[in-house]
Every structure is written in C-alpha cells, then in structure tokens.
C-alpha cells in the first residue's frame, strides 16, 4: 500500500472514530452539565429544586417553555433507591413527572390525568430494594434528572402550580 493511500485510510478511520465518538459522548456530556447546573452544582441531590417562571432570560436548559412551571430533581441512586411523589395542581391542569437517564433516555413518565390523585413511585437500580406497595421504576443509570412540568401559561396559573409543586418529594427511602 502506498504511503498516500495508507495516510488516507488512517484519516478516514480517525474521522469515523471522531464522528461516532462525539455522537455517543455528546448526550452524556450535555446531561452531565445539565445535572451540575440543576443540582447547584452537586449541592442539591435527591431533592427537588423549583425554577422561577420561565422568561426570556431562562438559560438553565435549552428550549424552556414559558407556559410551564418547572421543578427538577437530580437523582443519585448509588447509595440506594429514592421515593418520588408529586401532588396534582389545584386546578387539575396538566402536571407530569418524568425520569431521564444519564444518556437522555426518558425511561418513565407519569401525569396527573392518568393519576389524578398524584404521582408516587420508587426509583431504583436493578437489585435495589423497593418498598412493598409502591410502584417501582428501574433506572438504567445511577444518575439522572426528574423534571416536574405543570401547565402554567399565566402568572395566576404559575402561582397555583408553584403552591402545588411545593409538596413534591424526591428523597432517599
């Protein structure tokens, strides 16, 4: 094989590695950054934090919706399972609790239309104990993010959603 061909093969192989490596790494890196931001950084683990009403200056995650009230819990299951619960909004408007793994997969989602009395579940890694009688969600990664989204297109709706989400719980069992 001539030197030029050999160099061309090396270039193409390196380009393929660079492309695939970047594509695979990007979600993990971006989620890592998001988890650091949302946990202020690493000071608020396994606990909900409540974002102010979204406005033009919101920069904590891309494409925030100004019609929603957000809360989030950065979870860490390395020391055991956690219990997550959220009450419905007083006006019975849309509220959802979702679970995202560290690779951006949305591994579970619950909403208060399907569960009008509120959402309650245990999040655990495979092999970790879950309390009897509590629905369990098996996490695929030890860390991730649990957003709480509530419909809040007006200031009054945001105030109502803010009161409801104050009962959110995300804590070790």
């Amino acid at each position, binding site marked *: 094989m001539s030197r030029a061909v050999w160099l061309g093969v*090396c*270039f193409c192989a390196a*380009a393929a590695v*660079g492309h695939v490596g970047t594509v695979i790494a990007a979600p993990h890196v971006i989620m890592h950054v998001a988890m650091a931001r949302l946990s202020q950084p690493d000071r608020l683990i396994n606990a909900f934090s409540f974002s102010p009403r979204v*406005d*033009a200056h919101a920069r904590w995650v*891309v494409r925030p919706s100004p019609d929603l009230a957000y809360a989030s819990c950065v979870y860490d299951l390395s020391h055991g399972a956690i219990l997550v619960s959220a009450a419905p909004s007083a006006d019975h408007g849309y509220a959802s609790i979702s679970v995202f793994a560290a690779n*951006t997969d949305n591994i579970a989602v619950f909403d208060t239309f399907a569960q009008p009395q509120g959402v309650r579940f245990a999040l655990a890694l495979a092999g970790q104990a879950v309390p009897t009688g509590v629905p369990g969600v098996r996490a695929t990664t030890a860390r991730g993010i649990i957003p709480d*989204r509530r419909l809040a297109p007006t200031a009054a709706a945001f105030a109502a959603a803010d009161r409801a989400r104050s009962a959110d719980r995300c804590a070790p069992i």
Partner: protein
Amino acid sequence: MARWQFALVIAAGLAVGAGSAVVYMHQGMAPAGGGWMGSKVTGSVDADAWTRARVAVSGLLALNRGQALYFVRKTDEAGRPLRENCRYRVAGGALPGRWWSVTVYAPDNFLPRNDDGALSFDATRVHPDAAGQWQAVAASHPVPGAVWVSTRRAGQFDLTLRIYNPTPAAQADFTTIALPSVTRIACDGGQGA
C-alpha cells in the same frame, strides 16, 4: 512515514469527524409535513445514538411521544427562513391533544432576549371560529386585535409546536395531524408575501 505525519493525519481525521458530528447534531429532525420537522423517538429508549445526540443539543429533557409531541419549523410556507424583520400568520385548527403551545426560539435554542411577555401562545389564548380555525401573528411588534407572539430580538428564529397528551393516532402517524401553516405577511423594507 514520520511519526509526526501519522499523528497529524490522525488528529485531522478526529477533528473532521468530530466537526461533522457537531454539524449533524445541530440539524433538524425528519420532515413531519407542512414544513414542520419532528421525531417519533425523541426521549424514547428506542432512540439511536444520532437521535439522542440531536435531542441533547436541541431538546434536552424532551418527553417521549406518549406524553408530548414536538414539532419545529424554521421556514414559512414558501420555504423561506423565518426572520425577525418579517410578520407571519400562524393558522390552524384543532390539534390532537389535551393542550398545545407554539413558542419562538432564537438560533441558540433559547427564548429570544426580549421582555415583551409574549414568547408563546397556547390553546387557551387563540379564538377558534365556528369551523374551529384559529390565527395568531408572529412579529416583532404587536398587531392590534391579533393573538401575538413576539419575535423581537429572535433573529432567524424557529417555531416549536408542543402537543401534550397526544391521541394514539397522532402518536402513530404524524401525517394525520393538521399542523398549522406559517405564512409570511410582509417584511420591513417592503418585502411582501
């Protein structure tokens, strides 16, 4: 072959590969009809590595399609990029979900930096006529009598449609959804529709 030549070729290859990945990740999703782009695997555990990467860049923490459908468009009905200095009519009918909203995003994937308090409109704000059809205006300044979403300081922007709790039919087939049209009305400087 000198080692430095080999190292240079490898470094260049890695850089080109990584660069192509970054360009790819900033591109939109698949066509969903009517100028809108969407993905059936956003947030899903079925998403491949490339979809995950795109979502991580432009829609981190997006819900799966059972909970919400996301559609993005960057052009008007004529295929022209959406621009801050133009006014657009956004028009549609009933959408297959419990609630929906349309939001303006700047090219950096964040809300435009204006304090107009009109960064989106939703199902509760439009006024459908007897046939269920509604209209809104996307423009840098309010239009009297119209439901308005502000594009001020949005540059070359995009519109994102969120449909929450979509019907099973809509989840299964995006072509069943009558997505809103976006028609250019006029532009500053005299460029019309």
